[in-house]
Structure formats: structure tokens, C-alpha cells
């Protein structure tokens, strides 16, 4: 959207992706009409609370909902290939090779009964017809590249023998073992110490530049995307509610929910006595999504929309230069509120 080239597909392109799960209580609309584009070498941050559909989206791109009860519609274009309509077997051959994923908690995401090396070797050998010795050498190389000391020794360690940061490095080594062109990191630093978080983020940035891969970072932590992302997509209730370049989102956010996220982010440059400004209420049920704007029950400015927010779903509209917002307030109203009511509070010391 920021770099729309008519007639030509982006490296990764989602068009109106919907992932719905039928349950006994009703249909869970985890992802409900999501579209975005991502080019090689670029980083997209997807931000939102738990249950906003971030992780479901990433698993959907990898085709991991195929063959389950999930109902998937829309299009996922990866390097000129459409994946929603592709066979399960074909998407499997792309997984791990063309697109790979880094998961949140590396302790539970790695198999406790196999060595780290065996798990990397396994990932490499599915996609490359090589012997065990070659794959093992590759695994040691990968461990070395992600900064694990003495990789030829650590390759035979079990995940529980690694520290949290080492495990996440091993996880990254595993994901990168087949040079994926698309890398999805789902909360890659959430389970880590703050000091280790910064190291892992640095590592991911370096590796992304080295491999020139497209990177999607999924997180609820705006600090993480501030570090890495070129573009940011804010999700709420399975929909994109704001999208734009990182600068747009941090300097000129226009959606009340994004304001809330920024307000609830702890910052060192603020006074200790000052309270954070949490978003009131809880994320919406994805079965009974509120009528109108899904955010309106929690929105402080809903009263200024003359009731539209309660009845009509707002559209995702461009406010300027690739910055998209899904809100019933007019552009001028939003900018006025941000400049006069929100920003001064965030910056006051």
C-alpha cells in the first residue's frame, strides 16, 4: 500500500484474508478481511492485544490452518504463488524453506526429547537431499552464525540445557537453516530477559539484512516494532485498524486504539509518579464482535461520532501517503485530538 505498483504482485500480499473457526458457541472470526503487502528486505510489525488475530494470521500464512476446521478465504500471494487455494502438500514443501517461523517460547516450541542439533538437522534435511554429516556441519555453522559459543559442542545439547536467550538463538538458527525468504517472528522476545531481548532484536536485524528476507514481527510490545519495523499494522478484533510507516504510527497515530497502546507503553523519559494510561475494558469476543466499530465500547471518543460508531463498521481509509485508518472520526477531528489531548499527556514530564 505504501509502495503500490499496479499490476505487479508484491513479494507477500494478503488480500481480504479471512480465517474463521466454527465452534459450538458460534463462528470465531479470528481474522476478518485482512490485507497488506510486504517486500523483500522489509519488516512489517503487526501489533495488537492477545486475541486480536495476530498469531492466527501468521499461522495462516504458513498454511498451518489447512486441514483443520478453520474456514479460510481470501488470497495469500507469496512470490507470485497463491497459497490459500494451493494444496496442503505443496504449502508443506514451502514451509521451512521459503517461509519460516520463530515462535514465542523457545522452551516449549522445541522438542524436549531431541537435541538442538537434531532439530536443526531435521529442518535442513527435509528440504535438502544431503547426508547427515553435511546437515550436521550446516547446523553447527548456523548455531555459530546466531552467536552460540562453541557450536560444535552445543549442537549435541538438549533445549533444556540452554539458557532462554540461547534457546531463542537456536530457534532462529533452526528457522534460518533453509534460507527462508519470508521470516515470521511471533512474539520473539516476550519470553526473554530485557537485556537478552535487545541482543535477539539486533541479531534478527543483522540476519535479515544478510539474508535480505521479508520479516514479519508479531508483538504486543510497541518497543520491539519501534526497533525493527519499516511498516506497522495495528490489529483489533481480527481487523486492521491502522496501517502506516513506523514514523506515521509513532509520530502521527490517528486511531484511538493506537493512542491507547502508546499511552500504556512504559517510558523511561516520563515521571515515575505519572500513571500509565491503560486502555479500559477487555478485547472483544471474536464470536460476538460489537456492532459498528469493534473498538467503540472501549473508545473514549465514541461519543463524538454521533452514534455512527455503534451502528456502522468504519472503513479502512487512507488519510495520507499510505497511512490507513479505520475510524468514524474525521481526519481533522483525529488530528485535533492527537495534537491537543493525547500527545501533550504522553509527553508531559
Amino acid at each position, binding site marked *: 500500500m505504501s509502495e503500490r505498483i499496479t499490476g505487479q504482485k508484491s513479494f507477500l500480499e494478503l488480500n481480504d484474508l479471512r480465517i474463521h473457526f466454527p465452534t459450538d458457541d458460534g463462528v470465531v472470526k479470528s481474522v476478518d478481511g485482512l490485507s497488506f503487502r510486504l517486500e523483500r528486505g522489509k519488516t512489517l510489525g503487526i501489533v495488537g492485544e492477545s486475541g486480536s488475530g495476530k498469531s492466527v494470521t501468521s*499461522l495462516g500464512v*504458513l498454511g*498451518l490452518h489447512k486441514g483443520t476446521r478453520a474456514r479460510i478465504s481470501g488470497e495469500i500471494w507469496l512470490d507470485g504463488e497463491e497459497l490459500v487455494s494451493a494444496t496442503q502438500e505443496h504449502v*508443506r*514443501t*514451502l*514451509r*521451512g*524453506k521459503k517461509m*519460516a*517461523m520463530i*515462535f514465542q*517460547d523457545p522452551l*516449549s*516450541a*522445541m*522438542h*524436549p*526429547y531431541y*537435541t538442538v542439533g537434531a532439530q536443526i538437522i*531435521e*529442518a535442513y534435511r*527435509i*528440504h535438502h537431499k544431503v547426508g547427515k554429516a553435511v546437515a550436521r556441519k550446516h547446523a553447527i555453522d548456523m548455531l555459530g552464525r546466531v552467536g552460540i559459543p562453541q557450536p560444535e559442542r552445543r549442537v549435541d545439547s*538438549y533445549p*533444556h540445557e540452554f539458557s532462554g536467550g540461547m534457546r531463542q538463538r537456536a530457534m532462529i538458527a*533452526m528457522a534460518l537453516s533453509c534460507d527462508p525468504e519470508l521470516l515470521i517472528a511471533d512474539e520473539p522476545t516476550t519470553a526473554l530477559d530485557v537485556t537478552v531481548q535487545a541482543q535477539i532484536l539486533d541479531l534478527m536485524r543483522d540476519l535479515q539484512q544478510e539474508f535480505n528476507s521479508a520479516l514479519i514481527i508479531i508483538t504486543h510490545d510497541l518497543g520491539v516494532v519501534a526497533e525493527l519495523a519499516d511498516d506497522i499494522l495495528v490489529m483489533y478484533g481480527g481487523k486492521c485498524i491502522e496501517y502506516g510507516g513506523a514514523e506515521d504510527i509513532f509520530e502521527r497515530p490517528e486511531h484511538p486504539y493506537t493512542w491507547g497502546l502508546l499511552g500504556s507503553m512504559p517510558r523511561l523519559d516520563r515521571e515515575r509518579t505519572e500513571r500509565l494510561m491503560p486502555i479500559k475494558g477487555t478485547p472483544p469476543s471474536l464470536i460476538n464482535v460489537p456492532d459498528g466499530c469493534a473498538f467503540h465500547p472501549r473508545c473514549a471518543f465514541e461519543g463524538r461520532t454521533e452514534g455512527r460508531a455503534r451502528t456502522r463498521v468504519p472503513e479502512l481509509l487512507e488519510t495520507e501517503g499510505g497511512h490507513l485508518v479505520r475510524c468514524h472520526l474525521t481526519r481533522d477531528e483525529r488530528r485535533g485530538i492527537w495534537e491537543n489531548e493525547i500527545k501533550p499527556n504522553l509527553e508531559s514530564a
Partner: protein
Amino acid sequence: MVTYIIRRLIWGVFMLAIVSVITFAIFFLVPRLAGATSESLATRYVGRTASAEQVKIAAEKLGFNDPLIVQYGRFAKGIVAGADYDYGPGVERCPAPCFGYSFLTRLPVWPDLLNRLPVTISLALGAAVIWLVAGVATGVVSALRRGSFFDRAAMSIALAGVSLPIFFTGIVSLVVFSYGRPLAFAAPGGSFTPFFDNPAMWAYSLILPWITLAFLYAAGYARLTRSGMLETMNEDYIRTARAKGLTERVVVFKHGLRGALTPILTIFGLDLGLLMGGAVLTESTFSLPGIGKYAIDAITNQDLPKVMGVTLVAAFFVVMANLVVDLLYAVVDPRVRLT
């Protein structure tokens, strides 16, 4: 590792010593609390036709007038080092491990047990192979197709399996499948051919008891495997395995089943250890001359030395099975450290 095994073995001996004390107490202390005298205990050994004088002499010679602790010491020494028995006509040597002589047959208990052990081991091992394969396979398929017709049918049969007693399923199988019956493919009850005499006949003679016993256990294992698989297939590492692009077969067997097998292995070891001490119901139903049948006969005849022998042998197997399971646990799960 070695020190762990040694320590566990010492513990095992200690456990067996405790079992022997309890067994001894049940057979020699409890009757006395209930009013038995040295003479009434000796009567069992010399028979009811003996005169009061003979009984008195026997009680003295058997040591029933000694303090209990001395009697236990003699009993324990017999197991470890053998014992000399003096019935009157002459002294008989009972080599270690000596559990005494049967009241009924006057034969020492240990050789009897040794003779019957192959039957019980054949029965237990054969059934174990069947139930492990059938139970785990059924459980895996049920878990992967949860809610399907197969799952519901298998779990209903499994429920029947764990609920129906051996003496029911065993007799039904004998009536339907044994030699001379409508769907005969197996030997009638009461026959046993040692493996080394004729392996084919060995299997033929054991196939019905195997299936009957395995049915009972397979049912439990199927349910256990099913719930274990449902749990592991939801683990994060399964998602990782899929994200790597592994085929579903590798995901299920190498990653899923491997994770679900650990608790099954534990229970398998303990079940097998318990069965080595005699599959009482199965052996009785099929009249197999194993340890379990031996125990039942001994109890019916109040043949105390035999009962004590069986009890201690069964306890030995359970203690050993526990040790083996714990060692295997460390092999299967690298997170387990034996110290």
C-alpha cells in the same frame, strides 16, 4: 548412573526385607494374635492324625516356641542361605532361596516356583507385546480422528475391555475359539507347551490367554495413548515441527508419539512387573500352570510356605520393574537426571 543403580538396588533389597517382615507377620504373628498356639501351628506340618505328643515335638523342632524375632531370623536366613529342616525322620537340606516346604506335597517351594515361572513369563510377555501394539495403535488413530466413528467405536470397546473381568472374556473366548468349537483357532484351556519344546505349539497353547489378557490391558493403553496424544499434539513443539515443513507422518510419530510414550512406558513396566508375579485370573481361567495358578491353589489349601514364596517372588518382580522403569525413564526423557 552406576551409583544410582547401586543405591536403588540396596533400596530394593531393603524393600524386599520389609515385604518379608510383613509377610512373616501375616502368617506367624497374626494367627497368634487370633489365639493360635505353637501346637496348632505345628499341626499344619504333621497333619491332624498325629498324637498330641508328636505335635508337641514337631512344634519344638520347627522352633515355634522360640521368640518371634528368632523365628523371623531363621526364615530370612533360609531365603538367603538355605536351611536345614528336621521333621523327625531325618534332617533335610533346603537350599537357598528356601521358602520352606509345601504342607501338602512336602516338596520345597522354590523349585516349584522355578518350574512355573516360564509359563507366567510366556503369558505376560506375549500378552504385553499384543496389548502394547494394539493399544498404542488404536490410541493414536483415535486421537488423530477424534470424534470419528473409529474413535467412538474403539473407545466403547475399550470401555468394555477395562470393565469386563477376565473370567468372563476368558470363558467366552474358550467357548467360541478353542479347539473343537465353532471358530476354533486355539488350543483348549489347560494345555501348555514350553517354548523350547515346540515354539508353534507354545504359541498355539497360549494364543487365547494372550488375547484375553491383552484385551484387558490394551483397552487401558488405548485410552491412555489417546489422551496422551491429544495432549502432545497440542504442544508448541508440534506446531514447530509442522512449521519446519515435516510431513504429517513424521510429525505424528517422531514428534507426537515420542512425547506421549513416556507415561505409557512407566505404566507398561509396572504392569509387566505385576504380571510376572502371576496373572492369577488368566491362569486360573485357562488352567495354566503358572505362578498365579500356584498362588490360588496354595491359598485354597492354606499352604502357607507356598503363599509366602509367591508373595516374595511377586514383590521381587515389582521392585525390579520399578528400577528398570526409572532407568528407562532417563533414556527416554533426557531432562530426567538420575542422581
